[in-house]
Each structure stands twice: as structure tokens, then as C-alpha cells.
């Protein structure tokens, strides 16, 4: 289980995340909903070791991992697909994927995992020799998710995976993520796209100005008056 306990993230004087408690089980899809600037990205970056945690703890199966450097966290089973995707445009699809298997925990499974990634994203197999920067946004997002899978994560963190993608591509991507989840990976997704992310998630949290203001199962949130008002424009 991935657990955040009263976690604080601070940039100078600005408090981006103000003591949040979030937990994700393996094989579960959890979504954090919030507007721009609510602190969603900061939560994921802090878990992945990309920004320092000012206070509170992060634990993985009850072992504290707070303050570990990012490259070590990937070896503990945390994989982040950041905003902007974090892949290397001037390398090929295959290079990006193989490079994703750099953590020691993933090395022995490299060939099996890459076959699994190509099975979920056949498009990537067709284009494995293509340079990533020449690909469409949806394809690049596949590379990013594939690269994260290559590290054999227990928990996959996704920062607004639907951003900038056409609705039909977003649907395909969430279907692919459902297959990733079936392999036993826990998914923590932050999104502004409330409807589609709730449809694919088990549970969710509402984040406002760095604080958790609500939580529940997807059905509960879908029917919650506050969610409908804040995110869904009243009616669904």
C-alpha cells in the first residue's frame, strides 16, 4: 500500500500541498480531482522524489520512503508519468522503453515487459524505431506509460494523462490503463477531466488549494452535490 500521511509540499513561502492523507492499494485505481493549481502535480512529484517533502511521511507497505531520491524510488516500485510526459524525444520508442528498465528490479524482466507493453500498445511495436519527438501526442503518451511499465512498478502515478489529447484517444488510453491495472499495479491519477477519470477509477479524492476536501468511491463522488457543482457544471 502507498500511503501519504499529512504530507506538506512547500515552494519557498508558497504552501502547495497542505497536509494530505491519501492511500492507494495495489491493483486499485485512485483519482485526485482538482482545479489548476490545487497542488495535484506537487503530490505526485513529491511521491516520486522530484520535489522535497516539507513535512509528513510517505510510506510503501508501511516502510517510510520520504526523502528518497527519485532514481531509488523507481527501484522501490514507484513510477511517475509527469506532466509533459518525461520521455526523451530524441531517442527512439524502443530506446525509451529499454531505458525504462534501468532500475535493478526491472532488468531481468526487460524482454518480457517490453513484449507486454507492445501487446497493450501495438502501435508502439509498429513504430519502435521511430524518434519519439516525431510522434503524435497520443502516441507519445503511450510511450510514456510504456516506459513507466518497464520499471515494473507497484504503483504508477499519472499526471493529467488526458491533457491535450482528443476524446477518442483519451478513451483508448483509459482502456489501456485498465489493462495495466489488471497486472496488479496500483494507479494514482490526477485529473481535471472528471467524468472520464471517475468512470475508470475505484475511488477518488477532491483537492482544493492543497487540502483534501472530500473523498469517496467513484459512484459517491459522481453523485456528490459538491463535485457536481465544482467540477461538472451542475448536470451530468
Amino acid at each position, binding site marked *: 500500500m502507498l500511503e501519504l500521511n499529512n504530507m506538506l509540499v512547500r515552494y519557498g513561502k508558497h504552501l502547495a500541498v497542505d497536509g494530505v492523507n491519501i492511500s492507494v492499494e495495489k491493483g486499485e485505481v485512485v483519482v485526485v480531482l482538482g482545479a489548476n493549481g490545487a497542488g495535484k502535480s506537487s503530490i505526485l512529484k513529491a511521491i516520486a522524489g522530484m520535489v522535497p517533502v516539507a513535512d509528513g511521511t510517505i510510506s510503501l507497505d508501511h516502510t517510510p520512503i520520504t526523502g528518497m531520491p*527519485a532514481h531509488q524510488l523507481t527501484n522501490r516500485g514507484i513510477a511517475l508519468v509527469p506532466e509533459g510526459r518525461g520521455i526523451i524525444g530524441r531517442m527512439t520508442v524502443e530506446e525509451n522503453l529499454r531505458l525504462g528498465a534501468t532500475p535493478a528490479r526491472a532488468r531481468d524482466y526487460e524482454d518480457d515487459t517490453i513484449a507486454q507493453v507492445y501487446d497493450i500498445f501495438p502501435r508502439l511495436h509498429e513504430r519502435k524505431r521511430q524518434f519519439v519527438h516525431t510522434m503524435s501526442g497520443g502516441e507519445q503518451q503511450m510511450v510514456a506509460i510504456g516506459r513507466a511499465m518497464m520499471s515494473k512498478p507497484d504503483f504508477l502515478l499519472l499526471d493529467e494523462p488526458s491533457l491535450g489529447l482528443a476524446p477518442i484517444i483519451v478513451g483508448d488510453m483509459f482502456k489501456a490503463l485498465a489493462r495495466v491495472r489488471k497486472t496488479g499495479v496500483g494507479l494514482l491519477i490526477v485529473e481535471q477531466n472528471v467524468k472520464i477519470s471517475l468512470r475508470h477509477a475505484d475511488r477518488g479524492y477532491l483537492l482544493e488549494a492543497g487540502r483534501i476536501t472530500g473523498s469517496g468511491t467513484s459512484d459517491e463522488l459522481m453523485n456528490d452535490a459538491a463535485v457536481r457543482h465544482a467540477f461538472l457544471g451542475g448536470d451530468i
Partner: protein
Amino acid sequence: MLEHLINGLVLGGTYALVAMGLSLQYGIARIMNLSFGDTIIAACFATYILFSSFGINPIVALAIILPASYIVSLGVYRLMMEPLVKRAPDEGALEVDSILLTFGLLFVIQGCLLVIFGGGYISYSFMNTPVSVLGTLVSGNRLLALVLSLAIGAALVIVLYRTRWGMILRAVALAPKSAPLFGIDTDKAARMAFAIGGTMAATGGVVVSMFQTFTATTGVVFTMKALIVVILGGKGSVPGAIVAGLLLGLVETFVAAYIDPGLTLASVYTVFLLLLLVRPNGLFGKA
């Protein structure tokens, strides 16, 4: 004509070799190493001593100097660069700090060499017998220098493009911010890149000393030329460094042969300026 072509390639090959080293240090470790040329000269002197005092042939000397320079470069990085890396708030600050530090280091290395060897011109005679290549006579040491540059340069390219380890180094050069997400220890990559860069400099020194005279103070010329090659080739581009290095060597040799030997440096800067006017990011640089 053919003689100049071969001589140009020999010179260009060594430029390409050392520029690859500087490119690694700058592109991956983000350290602008102004003492780079003095590392080359130190290796020249080491080869000279091993050859003239201990009778060790420069090819065997390479087997000693290569690992030694890796260890020394690693030590320099640990001792002097790492504190800068740790305290630098961003890449720009690290660049400025490293320029200041290596500018000082340049004089330390140069001073040591001057104290030990004095300021005179040094050369030694190794494989100085002419060899016939396609009807033209070329000295054996130059041919050997060309072969060594090509072999070592090719080895580096293969490592960078065909091994995981090389892929990791390239990833840090291309996307330093994202690299940790791939599970890459960027500090370790920087350390290794700096050490390999230093090793390439030392290799260049061994090769150059076989056919050129050198003094304790010529290091800065090598630093300048390596810098020009790196910028001409495109920052961080290994193929760019190879092409630009060969180009520079050829231009220098042909200008010296057909126009005036005094104009070699001027010709280098002319090519540099003209190419940068047309391609501000270098031959293989990304816009």
C-alpha cells in the same frame, strides 16, 4: 595533396577525439572544463617520460595512462567538482562555478608541469620511419595516431549508441530533468562522464605527443580548439564533434600548406565564424 589530406585527417582525428571528451564533460556533467587542454598536455608529458626515461613504448603507455587518467579525473570530480554540483542552485550557476574552478586548475597543472619540465619545446622520436600510403610518404607515428584516434573514437560511439550504459549517458545529456524517472542516478552518470572525458583528453595527449612538439603552456590552445570543435559540431553531439574535428584538422593543414603556416589559427576562427553565422547551433545541434 594526398600527403596534406592524410596529415589533415591525423590532426583532425585527434581534435575529434579530444572534443568528444570535452563534449561528454560539458554535455553530461555540465562542467565547462577550461583545464581540459592541460590534461592533454599532462598526458603528453607522461608519455614522454615513460618513453624517454623508462623505454616504455607509447602504445603500452596508453594502457597505463588510460586507467590512471580515469582514476585521477574521478578524484578531481569527487574532490573539486562535486561540492560545486551540490551547492549549485541551477545549471547556469554550475557552469559559471566550474569555469572559475577549472580556470584555476589550468594554472595549477601548468605550473606543476613548468616546475618539473621547464618551458622548452619537447618531442621524442617514435616510429619516425616513413611509410608509403598510396604512393605518398607519411611518417609511421602519424599513421598510428590516425588509427588510434579512429579506433578509440569508434569504440566510444559504439558504447554510447549500443550499450545500456551509453544509453544512460545520452539520456542524461538529452533530458537531465527526466532521467531520474527512468531510474537513472544522474550524479553517478555525471561523475562517470567527467572521468571518461578526462580519459579521452589523456588519450588525445598520448596520441598527439607521438607526432607533435609540445610545451607546458600549449594546453590552452587545445582547450580552445576542443571548444571550437564542440560548438561547431553542436553542443553535446558526438557525430558533430567527429565531423567538426576532421574539418578543422583539414582546414588547418591545407591553409598551412598552400597559404601560410602563420594563418592556421586565423583560418580556424574564420571557419568557426562563418559556420556559426549559417548554423548558430552547430552542424548537428538542435535548434
